[in-house]
């Protein structure tokens, strides 16, 4: 039943800001359904309901449905649960693919049967819509990086892998997909116990608590603006892609079972990747690119606490591959894991290709020696000093940059890891040239062997796609096992850790402390540089490949370059005056067309592709103004609008309007901190002569000073600044009267003004009501004898429904509220001879107290509440 519910929430609540999540949610839910195989009726029911929704989502994106149907036709005629297919959606079909991977008994035959066919369709699809597939590469790569190598089924849960990255950002909208994941992922992780390695179990264990934190969060997102349909199309494909690739890979590997052959295509992919990624990724989905650098780092960090199971899957593969290919060493599988770790460590220390080459040479020597004297399996590689390998200049190697450089610096001799290249290299085209040719070569080879219909071009696309899922390489061995009964048995009987040629969690465990320590060592300056270079590489890639829109990236490149140079100049000299900078040249011109954007504090120079230009911001403001959502969502959106305005240095009526709007919302919600920020900006804007609701805000600031800052000097100066005209304004007059009432303590006047407050004046007064009431009751209980009727207090102190027209019930409500309030403040209430409640003033005069506010939090800002934080949006 819960499956159904989660599916529902998924679709009624699309999350446009996070393009990737929704589909993942679908994917996972359906996977869960498939696992409960006997519930196929339920599953098919859900899937069919899914189908309807998906279709509505993707209308307009016709390509999608075509790709699905292709797949359905090819991939599933022989499937065990093909009875589902007629009724179910396309999504349902593709998601059932991963299922076969981890339900060994059923999937065995099935997978081999299904495996051979899909590639045809996929490749056709890719041909048709290359942009979409390659586009998703970027988001995939960081997430899948951490997939546990040995588990094939983990592919179907890409979201979980990415979670550490995304959770770093305050993005509660993820909460739902995650939650579903947790729900749905539990059963599979337990059910196919044989298939799931120990590391996977650990992996889930690790994930679960995180997700449970989000669990209680009530679902709240309903927003979706028309423009966001675009990201929507992307997402289903992405999920789809994830699920289907394994099939394709399997097919490749099943046909060419020799490790050499099936690995080669994977090698070639990165270079093709580069091209693919660069071509389409940025124009269509700017957020992904911009998010990546940060997500990247976060993942690096997230890796260390995540435990060994989360350490990169590529480690083991990348180790075995170079050995197998380049150094003509014995079968990589025969190496102890600790040796792999050792080699990996050694390579991680290398800064450039030259070093890497020398490192490799010395490694080769060491390993050959070890093999010859038979110590290769006995030696403790974990403690083997790296200095023996890195005698070149270990000292020069910054420890902080080590993990990154291991990703960044790809030597041709270490191709397997080059799938990182498109992400890391700043000059991918120069470097990838040789690999590209190999790619073509293998492409031809593949194409011959597998499918005659494919052109080499299409093959490249396939590779591009495979390249987008680096984890698959890591899982090659695992997949191999799944496909060959013998090996699979070994896998299930032993475990991934026991198998020497599997990616070993042992060596990963060894690496983990290394990574974590390296990360902790990372100094901020280095980190910053790296971040810069990382974001720069996207610019370059973008600039290279965006044929139709070259000028813009170039400009942005130029800007970014200038910014970087400036930064360097500042770093170096530190003496350059701020005034000397040409800010105009550095000002970003946004190109983003999305109306909705989450606020994220900039940690580097703004990316033009993520910054919305003025006209879009105007729409965004309207959207927020009309939005029925809660304040936290609005605040977030307005902050992002403000940020975009700031980075583009827009100072005009729109800026004033945005700040005014935000200030009003903040007042409405009683968020004084945000209100103050807006007000101080507004003061600057008004001082610049920008028109706005000057008087309205003059009234607010008067009220604020009167009621909250309690600073006589400030009050005097702001009063003396009011012009004659301003004093005639209704709102300002009201504010001045409130001030008079407050300074004299005239509570009757105060609550009368409270009821007649114009604009949002009452919102500011709200925050003083409590104090005023307390003051009034204190005054009265000191001065009046013997009693005061509660009804009078309720009327004078502005409790609900005391207005003259609201008779009867309302009055009683106000009285009840009033007596509650009085009791809460320690007043002594008695019934008089008529049975009416009266305040015993003499008794009360000594017993009154100000209770602690109920919503008080230890850190003083109730808007920083954890639950609020998660429910934002």
């Amino acid at each position, binding site marked *: 039943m819960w499956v159904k519910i989660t599916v529902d929430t998924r679709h009624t609540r699309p999350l446009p800001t996070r393009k990737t999540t929704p589909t993942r949610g679908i994917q996972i839910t359906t996977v869960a359904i498939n696992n409960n195989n006997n519930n196929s009726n339920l599953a098919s029911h859900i899937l069919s309901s899914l189908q309807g929704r998906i279709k509505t989502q993707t209308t307009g994106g016709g390509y999608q449905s075509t790709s699905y149907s292709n797949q359905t036709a090819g991939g599933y005629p022989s499937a065990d649960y093909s009875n589902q297919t007629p009724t179910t959606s396309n999504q349902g079909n593709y998601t059932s693919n991963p299922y076969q991977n981890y339900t060994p008994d059923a999937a065995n035959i099935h997978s081999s049967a299904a495996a051979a066919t899909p590639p045809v369709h996929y490749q056709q699809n890719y041909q048709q819509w290359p942009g979409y597939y390659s586009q998703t590469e970027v988001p995939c790569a960081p997430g899948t990086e951490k997939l546990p190598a040995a588990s094939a089924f983990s592919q179907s849960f890409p979201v979980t892998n990415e979670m550490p990255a995304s959770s770093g950002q305050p993005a509660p909208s993820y909460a739902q997909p995650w939650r579903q994941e947790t729900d749905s992922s539990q059963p599979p992780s337990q059910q196919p116990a044989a298939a799931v390695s120990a590391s996977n179990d650990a992996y889930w264990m690790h994930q679960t608590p995180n997700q449970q934190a989000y669990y209680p969060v009530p679902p709240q997102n309903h927003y979706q603006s028309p423009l966001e349909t675009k990201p929507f199309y992307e997402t289903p494909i992405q999920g789809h892609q994830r699920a289907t690739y394994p099939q394709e890979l399997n097919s490749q590997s099943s046909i060419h079972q020799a490790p050499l052959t099936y690995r080669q295509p994977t090698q070639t992919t990165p270079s093709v990747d580069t091209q693919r990624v660069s071509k389409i990724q940025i124009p269509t989905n700017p957020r992904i690119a911009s998010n990546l650098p940060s997500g990247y780092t976060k993942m690096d960090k997230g890796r260390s606490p995540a435990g060994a199971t989360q350490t990169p899957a590529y480690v083991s593969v990348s180790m075995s591959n170079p050995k197998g290919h380049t150094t003509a060493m014995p079968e990589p599988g025969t190496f102890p894991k600790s040796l792999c770790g050792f080699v990996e460590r050694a390579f991680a220390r290398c800064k450039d290709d030259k070093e890497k080459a020398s490192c490799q040479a010395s490694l080769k020597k060491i390993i050959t020696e070890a093999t010859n004297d038979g110590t290769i399996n006995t030696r403790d590689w974990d403690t083997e000093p790296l200095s023996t390998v890195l005698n070149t200049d270990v000292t020069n190697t910054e420890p902080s940059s080590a993990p990154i450089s291991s990703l960044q610096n790809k030597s041709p001799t270490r191709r397997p890891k080059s799938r990182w290249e498109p992400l890391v290299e700043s000059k991918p085209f120069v470097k990838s040239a040789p690999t590209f040719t190999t790619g073509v070569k293998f492409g031809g080879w593949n194409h011959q062997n597998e499918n005659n219909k494919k052109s080499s071009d299409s093959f490249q696309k396939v590779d591009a796609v495979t390249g987008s899922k680096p984890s698959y390489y890591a899982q090659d061995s695992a997949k191999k096992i799944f496909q060959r009964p013998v090996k699979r048995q070994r896998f299930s009987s032993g475990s991934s850790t026991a198998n020497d040629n599997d990616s070993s969690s042992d060596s990963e465990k060894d690496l983990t402390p290394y990574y974590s320590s390296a990360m902790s060592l990372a100094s901020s300056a280095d980190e910053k540089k790296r971040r810069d270079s990382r974001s720069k590489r996207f610019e370059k890639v973008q600039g290279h490949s965006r044929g139709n829109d070259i000028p813009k990236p170039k400009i942005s490149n130029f800007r970014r370059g200038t910014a970087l140079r400036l930064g360097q100049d500042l770093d170096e000299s530190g003496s350059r005056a701020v005034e000397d900078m040409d800010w105009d040249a550095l000002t970003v011109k946004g190109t983003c067309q999305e109306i909705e954007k989450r606020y994220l504090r900039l940690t580097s120079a703004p990316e033009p592709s993520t910054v919305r230009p003025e006209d879009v911001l105007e729409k965004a403001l309207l959207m927020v103004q009309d939005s029925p959502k809660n304040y936290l969502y609005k605040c977030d959106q307005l902050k992002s609008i403000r940020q975009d305005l700031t980075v583009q240095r827009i100072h005009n009526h729109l800026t004033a309007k945005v700040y005014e709007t935000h200030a009003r919302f903040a007042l409405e919600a009683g968020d004084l901190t945000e209100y103050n920020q807006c007000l101080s900006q507004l003061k600057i804007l008004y001082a610049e002569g920008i028109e706005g609701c000057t008087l309205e805000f003059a009234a607010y600031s008067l009220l604020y000073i009167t009621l909250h800052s309690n600073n*006589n*000097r400030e*009050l*005097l*100066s702001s*009063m*003396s600044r009011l012009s004659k005209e301003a004093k005639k304004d209704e709102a300002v007059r009201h504010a001045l009267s409130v001030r*008079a009432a407050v*300074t*004299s*303590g*005239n*509570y*009757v*006047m105060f609550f009368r003004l409270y009821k007649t407050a114009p604009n949002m004046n009452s919102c500011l007064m709200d925050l003083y009501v409590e104090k005023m009431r307390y003051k*009034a009751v*204190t*005054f*009265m209980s*000191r*001065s*009046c*004898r*013997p*009693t*005061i*009727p509660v009804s*009078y207090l309720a009327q*004078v102190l502005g409790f609900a429904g005391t207005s003259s027209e609201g008779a009867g019930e309302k009055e009683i409500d106000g009285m009840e509220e009033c007596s509650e309030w009085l009791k809460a403040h320690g007043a002594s209430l008695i019934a008089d001879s008529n049975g009416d409640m009266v305040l015993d003033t003499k008794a009360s005069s000594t017993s009154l107290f100000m209770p602690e506010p109920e919503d008080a939090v230890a850190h003083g800002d109730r808007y920083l509440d954890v639950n609020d934080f998660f429910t934002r949006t």
Partner: protein
Amino acid sequence: MAYVSMGEAHRRITEYLNRFCDAVSYQDSSMLCRLLSFSSNSPSLISLADALNVFQDASSLIRQSEKFSEYGEILAHLFRSLQSYRVGNLVEAYLAFDKFANAFVQEFRNWESAWALEALYVVCYEIRILAEKADKELTSNGKSPEKLKAAGSLLMKVFGVLAGKGPKRVGALYVTCQLFKTYFKLGTVNLCRSVIRSIETARIFDFEEFPRRDKVTYMYYTGRLEVFNENFPAADTKLSYALQHCNPRRERNIRMILKYLIPVKLSLGIIPKDELLQKYNLHEYMNVVQALRKGDLRLLRHALQEHEDRFLRSGVYLVLEKLELQVYQRLMKKIYIIQKLSDPARAHQLKLEVIAKALRWLEIDMDLDEVECIMTILIYKNLVKGYLAHKSKVVVLSKQDPFPKLNGKPVSS
């Protein structure tokens, strides 16, 4: 500008340089003061400025002689400042003067005795005045005025130079007063706190040791600060000290002190004589005092409205507004006295109706709820003794001293 020949210019500059060096070497403070005070617009300085504008290469003249070049840095900046000042480029003048002042303070630090204290005062004064003028120029050019702020930090530096054990410490209060003036002008009075703390708590300073004029100025400004804080007894003490010790012939200064002292005294229930207000031309307080005497709420409100801008600017508006309660007290007392005349037995019962009627006569419209609220406040603040019977809408006054006088104590909060 009178024509100045090259030779004449050379002569004037050399003369000035000679006099400066003599003043320093003979430790002639008054001479040095005269040489430095720009704002005095003395003919000798004006003629020097003209000469400098003709004879552009004054710095080479300074370098020529070993005697002059000892103070080369001081003099070069001073000349440049004077030059700019003369041609009306006040921002430039300020910038050069700032450099001069820094060099001068550096030199002053090296002089063992405090002989040049007076000259330092002149420098402190001039830089403040010059900064104000420069800011005016900047504002008129549409730029943000920031020179006074800069002058403030320079003065703070000078304060640091003087705040020591030596004989120079008596100069600290003068600089403090200049700082007060700067901060009050800038509206950053909270910055005063640090100097005040060091003056009042540091052991090196003995307040009585400072020159009288500085003490008066200091008390005036700290008294004003207390007015802002509505700490009336303290403000009373400080302003009264200033009034007692200031030069009785300086009417302007006395007026300035009274401007704050009168509202403070009023808040403490002490009403000045009309002669005092007349003598020092403090007409704006006339009606306020009158209202207090008569219990005429309307008059007080009118007076406040009439002089609102002035009171807001000087910062006494809120203080005067608070006098309203005393006016109410006076009004109640009047009603009580009138009631006593007609019916002494029931005079101690003030009906809210009656009070509302009295206020209506003053053209102040209040309903019973509001009147009750005011009475509640009066009783709470001990301006009226008694209690309010809510049911019967009557204020029952205490038989004994129903309207206690403040007698120098502030209205309890």
